[in-house]
């Protein structure tokens, strides 16, 4: 049983999702418990696999017993194990957090919402575990389809935002499929390790260069790299709170993980040190994304929309770090994938709690928030400090590695962009904290209102405990970052 864990991590939610509508017919509230049960099983499996990989090296699982390249293979190395643990733990936290929010925003669609929730997590887990290029496309489409549906049941204007997301997401997936086709026609294999061995003698071929270009373009659409990020703000803002809390931390980071896998593991780095200037293009794309995301976030009055532009900027950090292509920058980029998922989760859970209490997620809703919901705002402050990059939160350490990598590569523009975005984040979040403390209102009005709002109207425990857990995780990951780096990420950094 133990050696079947790699497949059980994906198979248990997949088969469990089929039973979710049946359980929901029996009793609606049981869907929530069923979801939490399935995702806990995945978390247990993924933590076990993580320890197995740390102790013994890469884990291989051949589906159906067929050896690769004849059959499909699951390969779990250090980078994979970190990603699969991240995805399953984040999904479990959002699942536990979800009940009050779903019951308020979507009271008559609970059963099918949770079914699609489980299916989307299945898609994510399948993407990060697999070692086969076409299998990845199938699970990418499962995750995308479930995502489209989960976003479309949001507020007014959500279907139109989803339609734009469908058009752009399909272009991304199809470009990926086209790139895989170009690889297949010259190598004849779909297995990542096999392609890695067959490619070096084909580097002169124009087909391979086109394949790299289209794979990167397809993944760039999926990860919302500026300028093809236009689907992201509308889609994530208008989605229900639980959906944004699930998709926003994970989808872009998984696409970044795929970019690392394909550019560094399947196509070795030698390809674009010598043949194409992909490295410098990636760093410049990162710089532009950081600056554009930061500037556009400043202009927003809606809290969730502001967070979406911050997500765009964070993608820029990681892409720039990958482009710098020295070991420190790669370590920083991979650590930043982990950190950014947790930070974004923290901020979006706070946005969900605000939406639950107020019905909207505008910046003005934060007025006097510190009096009414002190614990929630404390978790918000932890998340904000992490995005700004203040020790000992985790955001500081990954930014430190990225800055160090930029200095080693002597890329001063990227360094300037990193520092500029930290400054802009300070402005953004202190604006929110100012509104939350009520500094903006005049003193006279403050004295009158002070009597009326003495009650603490905190969020329900089911939403509050996950938010606190995420804030604690941000601090713990920051304090233990050296352990994470030395045990997991050191070995996960692709060989250059």
């Amino acid at each position, binding site marked *: 049983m133990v050696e079947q864990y790699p497949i059980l991590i994906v198979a248990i939610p997949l088969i469990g999702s089929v039973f979710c509508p049946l359980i929901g017919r029996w009793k609606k509230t049981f869907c929530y418990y069923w979801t939490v049960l399935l995702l806990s099983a995945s978390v247990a499996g993924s933590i076990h696999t993580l320890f197995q990989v740390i102790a013994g090296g890469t884990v291989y699982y051949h589906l159906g017993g067929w050896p690769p390249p004849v059959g499909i293979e699951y390969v779990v190395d250090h980078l994979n194990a970190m990603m699969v643990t991240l995805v399953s733990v984040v999904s479990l936290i959002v699942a536990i957090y979800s009940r009050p929010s779903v019951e308020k925003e979507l009271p008559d669609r609970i059963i099918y919402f949770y079914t699609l929730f489980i299916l989307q997590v299945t898609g994510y887990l399948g993407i990060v575990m697999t070692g086969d290029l076409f299998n990845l496309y199938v699970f990418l489409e499962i995750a995308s389809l479930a995502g489209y*549906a989960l976003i479309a049941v949001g507020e007014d204007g959500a279907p139109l935002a989803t339609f734009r997301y469908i058009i752009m997401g399909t272009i991304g997936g199809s470009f990926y499929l086209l790139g895989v086709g170009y690889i297949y026609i010259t190598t004849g294999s779909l297995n990542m390790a096999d392609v890695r061995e067959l490619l070096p003698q084909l580097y002169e071929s124009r087909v391979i260069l086109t394949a790299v270009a289209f794979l990167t373009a397809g993944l760039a659409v999926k990860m919302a790299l500026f300028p093809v990020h236009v689907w992201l703000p509308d889609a994530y803002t208008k989605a229900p709170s639980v959906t944004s809390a699930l998709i926003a931390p994970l989808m872009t980071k998984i696409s970044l993980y795929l970019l690392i896998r394909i550019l560094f593991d399947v196509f070795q780095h030698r390809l674009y040190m010598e043949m194409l200037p992909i490295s410098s293009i990636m760093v410049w794309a990162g710089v532009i994304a950081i600056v554009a995301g930061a500037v556009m976030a400043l202009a927003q009055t809606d809290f969730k929309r502001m967070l979406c532009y911050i997500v765009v900027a964070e993608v820029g950090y990681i892409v720039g770090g990958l482009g710098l292509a020295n070991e420190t920058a790669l370590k920083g980029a991979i650590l930043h994938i982990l950190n950014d998922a947790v930070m974004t989760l923290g901020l979006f859970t706070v946005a969900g709690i605000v939406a639950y209490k107020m019905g909207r997620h505008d910046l003005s809703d934060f007025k006097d928030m510190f009096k009414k919901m002190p614990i929630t705002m404390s978790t918000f402050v932890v998340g904000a400090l992490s995005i700004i990059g203040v020790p000992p939160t985790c955001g500081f350490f990954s930014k430190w590695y990225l800055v160090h990598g930029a200095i080693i590569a002597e890329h001063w523009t990227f360094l300037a962009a990193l520092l500029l975005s930290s400054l802009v984040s300070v402005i953004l979040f202190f604006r929110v904290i100012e509104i939350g403390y009520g500094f903006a209102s005049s003193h006279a009005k403050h004295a009158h209102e002070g009597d009326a709002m003495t009650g603490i109207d905190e969020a329900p425990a089911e939403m509050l405990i996950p938010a606190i857990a995420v804030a604690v995780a941000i601090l713990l990951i920051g304090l233990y970052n050296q352990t994470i780096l030395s045990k997991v990420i050191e070995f996960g950094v692709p060989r250059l």
Partner: protein
Amino acid sequence: MKTLSIITGIIAGAALIYGTLDMPKWANPNSPASTHVSPYYLRHSVEDTSTPNVVTSVLADYRGYDTLGETTVVFTAGMACILLLRKRGRG
């Protein structure tokens, strides 16, 4: 917007056509795609899976997991349509 899209389309098309210049000839029986993994499927399909239809044996046996994923895609689309389109209750 229209000219931008046309230019993007032409650039993408040109890049793809540039990629096809080194591709194997159409219907070449010695292309890498036809000589790397596929001979294994053709030769061993009967002894491994007792099926003379090689497409079936690859779809259901060698790459059966992809078929499971495809079934899940159909299930996801069905659930999504129920979630989106069902008329809400009467009260």
